[in-house]
């Protein structure tokens, strides 16, 4: 039996590599980000003592579907301010550190994880945080009647044991290597058992967490108002201030229009512009007036080729697209240079990414042309290559979003140079989600985000064909590697599995990886001691306002 420990006060034995599991975005199921690099401004440095008071004004483009973390398909900054999780990720070292749990042990080859909980933690409604809260939270998450979007991220959980008030034991049916990534996701935020019983399905309208801010009011379409939680005293150890926040509260304004958001920020109506729109980010950065937090996203854009379509059934055509794609141009022209090229289905910031993959593609249009010629495609009258009277042409479906369309146009030009015609169809999310399972699409151009390589299970495992496997790819080797990656607890072995998996996927080329974009967060100079972590979460415990 292997036993590993982590403690709040003692040496942290759970390094990122030891655990395999990177802290997931507390904020987001979909949009998570990687390493932060502050390029301008030090929010800063607290020469003077932090000042109490003031309100932090933030912005979101739309209302969260719910403030109940188990009823939202993707978290955002409002959830992160309200809730805490069992574990956190150190903002500097990216190791797992305690948040609501003080320490943990892993037993029985990863099938049992025992958490020692931090004593004295209270939810916003006064309910003490005990092992029963952990149990109630997880049982609620996996309850089919809840239909929680994040239910699958807890993996093959069997049950939760509560030996005493401050010990919670998660028992799995089989080892689930990505579990710690999941524990940092907002879906696994701890909920008050009293509030669960009292509020039922209305939890999201009166959210009760144990985070640094508590809920006061939500005016849909306008704002979410949060108050400082005065009893808060369990901030992770990387904070200077581990008690209640310095500000009196936070207001999350809802402004859908990106240009209006930017004006409101420049006017000073907003203190922080989270996920600044790409169209204005460059100008705002160059103005030099603001603190800038640039965080590479743990995920990226890709071109997914439906391998069941006749045109893509020949692997050489798929590979040719890989060689014909110039990722640097995608970064420069479509993503305003606020991105990095991606040479693997796994973005460089996601745990499991393997450097120096021998099957990785680089821009080589001649090689693309040679492969297409080998596959029997010859120059045709239409300008595109032809075979048996059919042109080498396909339609790509993408979201009607500025960035997606711009990437599409760059790709369209590049593919045309090797004789492939690509037309772009813009769809809204609901339509794309509804139509892809039946395999109507030739190709898709979308993005994804997740902090652990296990995400590939959803995109390429044959069991996901009717849902997230939108390229309708089925390969026994890939299935086996994906399954192995899930249950291999040893980090070194798991990395090897994912290296092999990435090589196979690149060789088979159901996806053409493109680029991983940065998330830009801007703050006014009067916001002191702000930190934006690797997942673009705002770390607010040290923040104070000095106007």
């Amino acid at each position, binding site marked *: 039996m292997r036993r590993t420990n982590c403690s709040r006060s003692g040496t942290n034995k759970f390094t990122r590599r030891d655990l395999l599991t990177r802290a997931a975005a507390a904020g987001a199921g979909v949009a998570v980000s990687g390493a932060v690099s502050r390029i301008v401004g030090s929010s800063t440095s607290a020469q003077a003592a932090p000042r109490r008071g003031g309100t932090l004004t933030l912005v979101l483009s739309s209302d969260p579907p719910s403030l109940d973390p188990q009823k939202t398909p*993707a978290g955002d900054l409002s959830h992160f301010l309200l809730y805490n999780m069992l574990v956190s990720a150190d903002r500097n070292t990216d190791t797992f550190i305690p948040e609501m749990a003080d320490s943990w042990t892993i037993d029985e080859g990863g099938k049992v994880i025992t958490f020692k909980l931090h004593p004295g933690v209270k939810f916003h409604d006064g309910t003490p945080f005990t092992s029963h809260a952990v149990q109630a939270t997880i049982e609620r998450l996996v309850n089919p009647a809840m239909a929680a979007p994040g239910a*699958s991220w807890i993996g093959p959980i069997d049950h939760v044991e509560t030996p005493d008030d401050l010990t919670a034991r998660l028992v799995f049916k089989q080892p689930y290597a990505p579990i710690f990534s999941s524990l940092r996701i907002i879906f696994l935020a701890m909920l008050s058992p009293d509030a669960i019983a009292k509020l039922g399905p209305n939890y999201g309208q009166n959210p009760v967490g144990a985070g640094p801010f508590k809920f006061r009011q939500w005016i*849909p379409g306008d704002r979410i108002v949060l108050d400082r939680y005065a009893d808060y005293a369990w901030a992770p150890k990387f904070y200077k201030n581990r008690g209640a926040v310095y500000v009196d509260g936070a207001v999350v304004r809802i402004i*859908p*229009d990106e240009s*209006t958001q930017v004006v409101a920020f420049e006017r000073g*109506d907003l203190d922080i512009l989270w996920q600044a729109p790409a169209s204005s980010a460059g100008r705002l950065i160059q103005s030099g007036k603001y603190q800038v937090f640039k965080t590479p996203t743990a995920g990226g854009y890709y071109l997914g080729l439906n391998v069941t379509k006749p045109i893509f059934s020949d692997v050489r055509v798929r590979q040719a697209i890989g060689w014909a794609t110039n990722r640097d141009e995608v970064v420069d022209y479509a993503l305003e240079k606020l991105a990095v090229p991606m040479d693997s289905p796994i973005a460089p910031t996601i745990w499991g990414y393997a450097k120096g993959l021998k099957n990785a593609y680089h821009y080589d249009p001649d090689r693309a042309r040679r492969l297409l010629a080998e596959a029997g495609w010859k120059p045709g009258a239409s300008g595109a290559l032809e075979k048996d009277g059919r042109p080498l042409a396909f339609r790509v479906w993408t979201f009607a979003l500025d960035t997606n369309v711009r990437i599409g146009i760059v790709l369209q030009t590049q593919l045309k140079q090797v004789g492939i015609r690509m037309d772009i169809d813009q769809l*809204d999310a609901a339509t794309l989600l509804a139509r892809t399972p039946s395999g109507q699409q030739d190709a898709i151009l979308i993005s994804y985000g997740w902090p652990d390589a296990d995400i590939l299970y*959803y995109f390429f495992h044959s069991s996901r064909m009717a849902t997230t496997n939108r390229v309708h790819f089925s390969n026994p080797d890939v299935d086996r590697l994906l399954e192995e990656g899930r249950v291999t607890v040893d980090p070194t072995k798991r990395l090897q599995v994912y290296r092999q998996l990435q090589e196979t996927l690149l060789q088979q080329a159901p996806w053409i990886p493109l680029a991983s974009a940065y998330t830009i967060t801007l703050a006014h100079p009067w916001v002191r001691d702000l930190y934006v972590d690797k997942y673009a979460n705002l770390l607010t415990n040290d923040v104070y306002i000095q106007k």
Partner: protein
Amino acid sequence: MQRYVVQRLWHLVPVLLSVSVLVFLMVHLVPGDPVQVMLQEYGSPAQEAALRHSLGLDRPLAVQYGTFLWRLLHGDLGRSIHSGRPVIAEIALRLPYTLWLTAASMAVAIALGLVLGMVAALWHRRILDYAAMIAALAGISLPSFWFGLVLILVFSYYLRWLPAAGADTPWSLILPAVTLGTSAASIIARLSRSSLLEVLRQEFIRTARAKGVNELQVLYRHGLRNALIPVLSIIGLQFAGLLGGAVIVESVFGWPGLGRLAVDAIFNRDMPLIQGIVLIAAAIFVAVNLCIDLLYALVDPRIRYS
């Protein structure tokens, strides 16, 4: 009069019923599944089935419509699939904002439109006429999202007189109302100009003038009141236009109205919410047009309803 009002209110029933059938069919015909939107991509098939069942989406369309209608008769518009809140509560939260915005825009449209129209008619084929009509043409041609942003840039960013977004102060209403009201004002201006010109050419105006009636009285008592009838009917129609136009303006100005709720509901394929919003909007539209019809009688004593 009372009988007429009751009769018109009865007409509301088939109108709303038809609207409900149309909307119901439309939201079910467009591709997209609310369950997929809610669970995103990572839900299991079993979860999807459970959610579909709990929302009643696994039942035949006719049964779903029947249930919707039965609830509607009991004053229940169901619950939003996405937020889980009652549809009526969702609408009640947002409707006042939209009504405020629409009313303020209407006030801008009427004031601006009538003034421009009157100026153009009184100074027919002179510089003021041309200037007013060019302004009207510009007002109708400028896309509201662009015009709104220009107003934000000038009054909010450079002059710093008004807030860029939100609904927390009465000042917040000014920019969206002006943006929304301007295009409606243009139509009212053009129509009131032509209507007034036509009336001013009538014999009774000449008679009034010949009798020595003061020019202001000629214009107000004899001219404008007669010219207003077609203008009133277009104001009723414009009201619907404003409800629809609010969708864009509400997004630009972060105004928490019904338009944005509708757009979000459509993107989320939140069927009960879409149905609820359309029904309420249709009812408002019919009610406003009824009020306009009743106003005719006030403006023109010759019109009597029986």
